[in-house]
């Protein structure tokens, strides 16, 4: 992933995110505590107490209110941030639509955690997958470095006048959020020259009284407003590519835009995965390559905008592909597998296997990946569960 690896700190994913928020010169932070997000907001509160940042930090009484407060401060013209997880994200759901619909480029961290019952605090993507149609850009990070860098790139992408949509950046619970890794912290000067200050063109001003939100009849601008959101989501691909390049120029770390391809140039079979599951997948690809299997891995970084064109290109020449979902969806397959299948429809005729794995933080082991690659090689095109008791 990175061209140049240089590290000057060791920190958890949540600490790295907090440092990213500091470097982005966020003005307003509002949040409600939920495991495993807590160490992000604790760290930010500590930074405020230490006068390391001048942001105003308000701990509210619920996640719905956290997004309600961030929505309003962003509309007033202040760069704003929140973080949550799991049920907290579900509780915010209404406000996610409202913030995106008002075209406010908030950036939020989501520490991916399962949804109960039963209660379970471990890694799973059902929380954020449930928000895929809220109008937020979605980035699934693979490392603590990427979690930090995505905050910086995130504001620049979201605040672009061609996008003006909010962005959520995901970290896997505990695997990133609470695990220390080497991280390269950019300097404030470097970040300041990369990320300009926030200037919302339609921010609230008592000199220009307007209604923000209002209502629309069926013949009013409602449908056009929604169409424009969908178009801005599509257009954001171009901005993502540009900002990713600018980031590489500024910091020497090169990300791959919407999807990352690992050992794909001569691959016959590939697995599509996201987050830290992609890391294990890459390791297994290496192992299978040693045995002569021509396999590769495609990591979905951005699930919104959905990288349909990128995936069509990435699978061209393959004989089979599989999609790994770490979330629950009561549809024919997992959410990612469904969308990959839709994207490849009539663009590719290779079998697309769907795997659901790792729910509630269940480990997805090396041998599970080997089995998945085996099934892909065998031409499996159905959907199944991985490492589940009582049979798939």
């Amino acid at each position, binding site marked *: 992933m990175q061209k140049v690896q240089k590290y000057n700190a060791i920190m958890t994913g949540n600490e790295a995110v907090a440092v990213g928020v500091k470097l982005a010169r966020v*003005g*307003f932070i*509002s949040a409600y505590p939920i495991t495993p997000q807590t160490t992000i907001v604790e760290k930010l509160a500590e930074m405020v107490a230490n006068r390391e940042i001048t942001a*105003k930090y*308000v701990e*509210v*009484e*619920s996640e*719905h*209110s*956290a*997004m*309600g*407060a*961030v*929505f*309003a*401060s*962003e*509309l*007033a*013209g*202040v760069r*704003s941030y929140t973080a949550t997880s799991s049920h907290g994200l579900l509780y915010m759901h*209404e*406000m996610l639509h*409202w913030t995106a619909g008002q075209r406010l480029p908030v950036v939020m961290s989501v520490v991916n955690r399962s949804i109960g019952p039963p209660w379970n605090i471990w890694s799973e993507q059902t929380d954020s997958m449930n928000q895929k149609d809220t109008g937020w850009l979605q980035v699934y990070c693979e490392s603590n470095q990427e979690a930090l860098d995505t905050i910086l790139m995130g504001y620049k992408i979201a605040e672009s006048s061609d996008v003006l949509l909010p962005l959520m950046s995901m970290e896997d619970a505990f695997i990133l959020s609470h695990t220390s890794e080497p991280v390269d912290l950019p300097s404030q000067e470097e970040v300041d020259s990369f990320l300009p200050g926030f200037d919302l063109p339609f921010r*609230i*001003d*008592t000199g*220009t*009284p*307007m*209604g*923000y*939100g*209002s*209502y*629309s*009849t069926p013949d*009013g*601008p409602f449908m056009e407003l929604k169409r424009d959101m969908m178009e801005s989501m599509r257009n954001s691909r171009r901005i993502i590519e540009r900002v990713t390049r600018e980031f590489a120029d500024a910091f020497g770390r090169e990300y791959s835009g919407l999807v990352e391809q690992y050992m794909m140039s001569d691959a016959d079979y590939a697995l599509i995965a996201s987050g830290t599951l992609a890391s294990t997948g890459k390791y297994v690809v290496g192992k299978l390559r040693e045995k002569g299997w021509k396999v590769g891995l495609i990591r979905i970084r951005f699930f919104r905008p959905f990288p349909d064109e990128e995936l069509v290109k990435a699978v061209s020449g393959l004989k089979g592909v599989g999609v790994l979902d770490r979330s629950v969806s009561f549809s024919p397959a997992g959410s990612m597998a469904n969308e990959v299948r839709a994207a490849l429809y009539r663009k590719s005729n290779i079998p697309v296997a769907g795997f659901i794995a790792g729910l509630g933080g269940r480990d997805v082991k090396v041998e599970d990946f080997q089995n998945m690659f085996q099934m892909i090689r065998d031409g499996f095109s159905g959907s199944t569960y991985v490492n589940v008791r009582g049979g798939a």
Partner: protein
Amino acid sequence: MSGEVHDMPFSIPREEFMEPGHTACHGCGATLAMRYVLKALGKNTVVSVPASCWAVIPGAMPNRTLDVPMVYTPFAATGASITGLRAAFDILGKEDYNVVGFAGDGGTADIGLQSLSGAMERGHNVFYIMYDNEGYMNTGVQRSGSTPYGAETTTTPVRAEKNFKHQQKKVVADLMMAQGVPYVATATVAYPEDLIRKIGNAKKIVGPKFIQVLSPCPTGWYFPTEKTVEISRMAVQSGMFPLYEYYDGKLRVTKPSRPVSIREYVSAQDRFLHLEDEDIERLQATVDQRMKTLLDKERETSGA
């Protein structure tokens, strides 16, 4: 007396911040409440309104009816939105902006109570105006926590079963006093001078201010549209809706000067049409008890 000239005919500020052409129902009390609140606060004000009558009163896009910015929010987000607005304006050096949450009784007593309570507890320098029309009027007159005992609504219909609201009104202003909000008051549209004076007092306090404004609704209370102000006046005179002001730890209750009976008050509105003598007596007893509680508290807090 007929023919007498008033030296000061304008008892409230003349400047308007609510324009005509809005789409409120005939005789809307909530519209008067907004008109007076903005007269009291002036141009440098930002209003946040959740789902409620006031979310449709300005009319469909692209219309606005206020001469100040108005932020529309989902139902439960009023307290949270004024939190974010206040913080942002302070960050931007706009400390002189008045931040006002303007929500109905459903959005305050019911779905928005948590958000309201949180915002008040955190002590932000904001106004929260609850325009109390005693039910979900915008959605077609359903029962809210703030609907009074005895009222028929579309979800407390009186048919073979007399399923009018059998519970007492949840008075959010009383809750706010109990929570220790530094400024709490009740007001109603029949007394705009009183409401505007109270906002003036509230403005002197840097911190959260809560004012519950009874806003009669001809559409939902089933009375003729010309009676809005009259009903509002009767609500105070009967003791059904006592006016008070609470700040500096002291409660000041406006004593009804010309008492009207509860029977007269409920007789003027068809939402109470079905009430029998014993129901009215029960209501009268609770009204008397509440007035006594308030006057006791006034005595306790006056230090006398």
